[in-house]
């Protein structure tokens, strides 16, 4: 039994350390991941303890990072690559979409690509352009990839463990503005399935579904709604591909109402897919249309305006009210 309170950043660091320690084939690659420990210090101290051969500072070339990670995976390694910021993943998008996602199928299953691509994502840190985006739908849309995002320290630890053990490529979105949020991590437990949603607050009037950085906002909204006598259930989806529709369905069959919340633009976002599927599955249970709260169809705004763009407590509550008004 080992129960510890730690930040999401520390939980990721501990999980990566355990992965390096457990499996000699695990490698960490990325820009500044060595001595510096990454710009968010997620790999802090790992190169010192595991050496430059296993924690590898790479040239500043994202396509090269993912492309060489594919080659290392073909040689039997299990690379975990770090993309420094969400908006910098696009030079690697070609390698991820045309090669990483499809090579297993191209070989009719004869080879596997156990590569984890870590991407700190989302806004709320007052950054310059390209440092605050939420491109998860662009990856969830691609068959062959699995896309996950933890919202708390325990999930950060365990979902990373499971991602490293997965024989499929995993795009691992880390909620960067929550890196320093602390939570309890039980390092001895046997975790549930990686792609299963979690009910993080029970309720009976409406379901809020979110993932990553928005789970905290939804929990705050549910607490605020409670004061007005509304009972809100909050689901942490945890995985954007595949999505645990069964858990969402079960919740909506109970509450009759669903609001999906994410930072990414609403247009073609994961909320659209959830709304369509749940409408199909729960048509006779729904008391209101599935509503979505998210970013607008505009380039991510400058930092001084990001609070206007990001879904906050009030915008989530507004959607809750609109749903309950039906």
């Amino acid at each position, binding site marked *: 039994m080992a129960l510890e309170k730690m930040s999401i950043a520390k939980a990721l660091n501990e999980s990566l350390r355990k992965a390096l320690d457990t499996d000699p084939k695990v490698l960490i690659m990325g820009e500044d991941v060595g001595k510096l420990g990454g710009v968010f210090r997620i790999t802090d101290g790992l190169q010192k303890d595991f050496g430059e051969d296993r924690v590898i500072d790479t*040239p500043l070339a994202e396509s090269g990072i993912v492309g060489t990670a594919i080659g290392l995976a073909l*040689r039997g*390694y299990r690379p975990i690559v770090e993309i420094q910021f969400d908006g910098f993943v696009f*030079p690697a998008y070609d390698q991820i979409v045309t*090669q990483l996602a499809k090579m*297993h199928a*191209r070989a*009719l299953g*004869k080879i596997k690509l156990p590569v984890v691509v870590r991407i700190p994502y989302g806004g709320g840190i007052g950054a310059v352009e390209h440092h605050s985006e939420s491109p998860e739908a662009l990856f969830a849309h691609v068959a062959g990839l*699995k896309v996950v995002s933890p919202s708390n320290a325990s999930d950060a630890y365990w979902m990373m463990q499971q991602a490293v053990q997965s024989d499929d490529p995993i795009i691992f979105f880390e909620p960067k503005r929550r890196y320093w949020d602390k939570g309890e991590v039980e390092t001895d437990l046997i975790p549930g399935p990686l792609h299963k949603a979690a009910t993080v607050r029970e309720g009976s009037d409406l379901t809020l579904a979110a993932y990553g950085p928005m789970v905290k906002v939804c929990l705050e909204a549910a607490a605020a709604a409670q004061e007005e006598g509304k009972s809100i259930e909050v689901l942490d989806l945890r995985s954007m591909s595949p999505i645990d529709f069964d858990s969402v369905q079960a919740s909506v069959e109970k509450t009759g109402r669903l609001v999906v919340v994410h930072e990414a633009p609403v247009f073609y976002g994961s909320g659209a897919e959830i709304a369509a599927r749940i409408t199909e599955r729960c048509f006779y249970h729904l008391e209101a249309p599935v509503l979505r709260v998210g970013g607008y169809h505009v380039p991510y705004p400058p930092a001084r305006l990001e609070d206007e763009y990001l879904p906050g407590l009030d915008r989530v509550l507004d959607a809750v009210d609109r749903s309950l008004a039906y």
Partner: protein
Amino acid sequence: MTVESTAARKPRRSSKRTSAAKTPQSSEPELVQLLTPEGERVEHPDYTIDLTADELRGLYRDMVLTRRFDAEATALQRQGELGLWASLLGQEAAQIGSGRALRDDDYVFPTYREHGVAWCRGVDPTNLLGMFRGVNHGGWDPNSNNFHLYTIVIGSQTLHATGYAMGVAKDGADSAVIAYFGDGASSQGDVAESFTFSAVYNAPVVFFCQNNQWAISEPTERQTRVPLYQRAQGFGFPGVRVDGNDVLACLAVTKSALERARRGEGPTLVEAFTYRMGAHTTSDDPTKYRADEERASWEAKDPILRLRTYLEKQELADEAYFSALDEESEALGKRVREAVRAMPDPDRMAIFDHAYADGSPLVDEERAQFAAYQASFAEEGN
């Protein structure tokens, strides 16, 4: 053999070489050549090769059979049996020479045109045809012959080769990796990044660029202002230009580069100067963009003809050998033809196989829906 020489002659694309049997003495760029278009053995100061008669005949046989297979595939496309074919016609020496330089434990990352290299690796030619017929996207086990799947996105595989080579070095193995690509791919960012990564990590990889002068309709002049092999210098490793229609030179230069990689001295860029005698693929029409005279000038440098001339002059092969090889060629063509015609379409449910290694509930759901949809027709039929 060493690869320290980065000297190469400027290409003369439209003039037939008449005095090729000269060793370069000046600083004028020269391409490495050991067998002239006229079938004469010449020496090179940096590269030597000494092959038995059996080995020489083996290279000849490889090239002849590869060309026969290639011709059969083109014919099968014309007959509607294949959806597309990317012919290697004219590039046999570059592929057989480099392919025969490899050890079994070396690893190959090809484009979609390396049919000759696949032959050298022991990949059954019929395996290559599945993707061109449209029954799979490749499907062979890359680890059976250390020959990766054909990669269609231009230049992507150079990074995979580099990563694989980084893994070889980590394992402490003395294997080498070879990445094939073309003159068009040399413009891709991934190729530049693979040069950077392989150089800084000193990865045991050979970059084998078949400069066949054309990237579909664009001549090499549209890709580069310097000879391609010179690109290597800026990345900090040697580059060498070899006569890509000279199987002996391609073998010697590639072998030397592989040995350099094995010694832990890092990557080498080999530019095999050759010519795409056919169309880019069976969908292409080169009469729209290049002159017949150019092709004719390269016909005089044919890789197979020059080795045959040499074998005949040296009396290393007789008429009985050549006619037996002709028979073997026809048998190969027949075998390929029959195999392709007998190649069944996959079961329709196969589209759901192998999207994921660990499976996916979404794919499972869609598979079940599709199966139920198909089953509904069977019920109607009852």
